[in-house]
């Protein structure tokens, strides 16, 4: 039966990048806000601390939030679903400014999308920021740092970061969605169905996001390696010869 329903369900993630307003009942919406709160508090503390040292960091984080907003508004064709989906963009934000500040970037980007595009919502802002901001950012950042420590090039590390940030975001979204809409039904079968529904679009989209993140990081390395040094993504020793 699941197989029969897959074509029907596979369209969901293609359009529903974020959990829509009203899907989560009040107690789950409040729960995810509570789970998110310490990460936002730490992000606020971190941004306050680093922006005291460099006044340009707060505007930079704002502009990066705008970039994440734009990236996540850009449709990418997904052949398996015959439709379009879009990347998250938090992987690259986490690489550049760290996972805690990236949580704030995701929160702001999602707030603007909720208020003006009806992507996500205010009641689901906690849940969406947790999946995209916390899970996506930390997955991307850890993957990038891990790949670099293992000797991976910037492109490989960027690819792994983008891929895992995207897949981790959707795994978290599937979990949140299944917990929120299950009602009296048991959790595991519904979770499996939601994950299966996400697979046709998110498997290729994760790879696409990995390629795009790798492209972005290598472009920055080629054109503006000084920015990567400033954001402590690479050390001065790793600067290209022409820089």
């Amino acid at each position: 039966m699941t197989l029969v329903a897959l074509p029907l369900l596979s369209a969901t993630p293609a359009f529903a990048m974020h959990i829509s307003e009203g899907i989560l009942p009040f107690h789950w919406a409040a729960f995810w806000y509570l789970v998110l709160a310490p990460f936002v508090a730490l992000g606020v503390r971190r941004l306050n601390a680093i922006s005291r040292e460099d006044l340009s960091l707060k505007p930079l984080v704002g502009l990066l939030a705008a970039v994440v907003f734009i990236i996540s508004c850009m449709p990418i064709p997904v052949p398996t679903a015959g439709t379009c989906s879009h990347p998250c963009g938090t992987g690259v934000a986490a690489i550049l400014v760290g996972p805690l500040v990236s949580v704030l970037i995701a929160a702001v980007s999602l707030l603007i999308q909720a208020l003006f595009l009806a992507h996500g919502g205010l009641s689901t802002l906690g849940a969406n920021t947790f999946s995209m901001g916390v899970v996506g950012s930390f997955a991307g950042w850890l993957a990038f740092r891990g790949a670099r420590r293992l000797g991976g090039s910037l492109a490989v590390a960027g690819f792994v970061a983008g891929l895992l940030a995207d897949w981790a975001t959707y795994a978290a979204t599937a979990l949140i969605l299944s917990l929120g809409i299950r009602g009296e039904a048991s959790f595991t079968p519904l979770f499996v169905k939601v994950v299966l529904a996400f697979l046709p679009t998110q498997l290729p989209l994760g790879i696409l996001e990995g390629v795009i993140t790798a492209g972005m990081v290598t472009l920055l390395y080629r054109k503006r390696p000084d920015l990567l040094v400033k954001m402590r993504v690479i050390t001065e020793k790793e600067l290209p010869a022409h820089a």
Partner: protein
Amino acid sequence: MAMHHLKAHICDASHPVNRIDPRVKLLCALALLVMVISCRGVAFPLLVSVSSLALCRYIGTTWRLLALRFSEPLFIAATVLLLKMFFSGSDPLFSFGVAGYELAAYREGLKEGVLIASRILGGVSLLAVVGFSTPFTDLMAALSWLRVPQVLVDVALFAWRYLFLLLEEAQVVYNAQKNRLGYVGYRRSLSSFGTLAGVLVIKAFDNSQSITTAMVQRGYDGDMPMTLQRPLRLTEVASALLFILAMIALRSSV
């Protein structure tokens, strides 16, 4: 599409609904949102949805913009409804065969699906009224008044201020890439998209430097001065309370 959608949010400041203090609007909307998402029946969320849509039309929102705004939530509502109807419950309503499989719809699933769909419509309509009737900066000032961390509000204001600039730059780069066949073939499209995103990050870095220089010259010391909020008038507090109480009464009666 996002650019057109965002640019359409120009509020007519003289309209009575748009003149309501954003703090009052936000508080009422948040209270209603809590009522909608904690509702166990479909009547109240649908009532909120219909009233909010009527209010959107009253403030001059076009049908086209409403259709754009509701296309995604409506699709999600329909999908959740179908998902719940066919995969949740035990009391069969009807069944049919698809490719050799028997697909059954369940009564309990239908009920739960309709409830979630009504909550989606209610919530989205509420946010539409707030979004269409309040400028972003006023909403941020209201959030600041509600004790949302100032640094978060500052970042949101920076993001909003430079969003349109970056969108225009993205459009220019995209058109240039497209004219040079940058989006012909899957591999080239990906490469072009990666370059476009990378260029935006570089632009963000460069703009943040020039913005900071310009702001420091005007006295910026790391804190964005928010508009001083006047205390809420007694009539505003009373009318907000009255509205919320009326909605609570309505919710428990339907």
